[in-house]
């Protein structure tokens, strides 16, 4: 409904522009044939301009109708943006998860490679260390 209305407003303005263009062509043609005097040309040009000024006023109306249509879409739109932003924020939780996994892997690797005893016994302490690092 709103769409047809803003289209109608724009179409009406386009039609006025068509008349203004026809008036202008005629003025120029008559000037070329020296059929009209300067004051007549001036006066006709003012009429032509009046149609153009009105057309521009209607284009502004069409612009306003588009804006009010889009306002609804924008409200909806902000929800999507805000959701994405909060997803970017939740990465911190994943960071903690990744640390935990990586921590387990490295300790397993270090244990396998070199000194199993002290490392395994240090496992809990290291975890706690990392926990503090992540939280701070």
């Amino acid at each position, binding site marked *: 409904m709103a769409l047809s209305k803003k289209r109608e407003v724009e179409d009406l303005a386009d039609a006025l522009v068509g008349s203004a263009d026809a008036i202008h062509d005629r003025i120029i043609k008559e000037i070329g044939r020296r059929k009209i005097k300067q004051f007549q040309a001036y006066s006709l040009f003012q009429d032509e301009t009046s149609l153009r000024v009105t057309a521009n*006023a209607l284009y502004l109306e069409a612009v306003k109708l588009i804006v009010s249509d889009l306002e609804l879409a924008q409200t909806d739109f902000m929800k999507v943006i805000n959701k994405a932003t909060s997803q970017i924020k939740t990465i911190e939780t994943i960071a903690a998860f990744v640390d935990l996994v990586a921590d387990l892997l490295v300790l397993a690797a270090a244990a396998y490679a070199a000194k199993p005893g002290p490392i395994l016994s240090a496992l809990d302490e290291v975890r706690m260390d990392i926990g503090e690092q992540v939280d701070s």
Partner: protein
Amino acid sequence: MKRLIPVLLIGGVLSACANLKEVRDFATESAKFSTYTDLTTRFRDTTDRARPYLTGANLAQEEATDKGRKEVYPELLKIHERVSLYFKTLAKLAGDETFDLSHEVGTVGDTLKQHPAFGIEPKHVDSYSSIGNTVSKWITTGYQQSAVREMVREGDPKIQVLLGGMGDLVRLYRKTHTQEKRIVLGFFEAEIPFRDGPQDALLAALAKTHVQSKAMEYRLVESKYDDAESGIKKIMQGHRSLVDNVNDVSASDLTTHLQGISNDIRVLGGHLQTFHN
């Protein structure tokens, strides 16, 4: 030994992970596309340029329209800001830094280095860091892809409506511009032929020079409307492709496609900057 197996698997999994660079580049270029703003400002200032050619009732009506244009101007900019914010967010979501955990992993490595009592040698710490980075990249890439997917899928209907609206607005800006041009150039067209006497030679020469520079100005501006319209279409198209290929953001076709679109948008933007300066 068993515990090392996941580590060895990671390499294989990683190579299958998507590269989101193209998505990010596309989103960054789209967010920067500022022609719309330039043309909106030009639309707002229409009356300032047309005023010298208007009198009486025409001037009065134009002044009323001028007031209306100035009132709606902030709303028009807001549309661009929202679209821009969307693409900035998408660029960030698809960005390298957003999901880069090398800092966190590095911190853990440093902590280990500072505690030699654990009996961990530096080379183990270094291997920890590299494993940690690999694991974090592996895990977060999956998360990142699904976040990007969700955003483009949910955002598409809205972004298409907003971009379509921006396209409609640019069309109306162009029509407004055309009327301004026909008023200004038309005025001279209807006046200059009557100034062909010797006493008006100076006036005629000045008027013709002015017509030349105005005609040049209008030509340059008109290419801006073309650029804005094709830029908006390209962004709509690019986003559409993102949604169509949403289950495989790294599909090579899409990658090439998006790279092309990002470049086009960048070129259009640079082109416009040249005019602007």
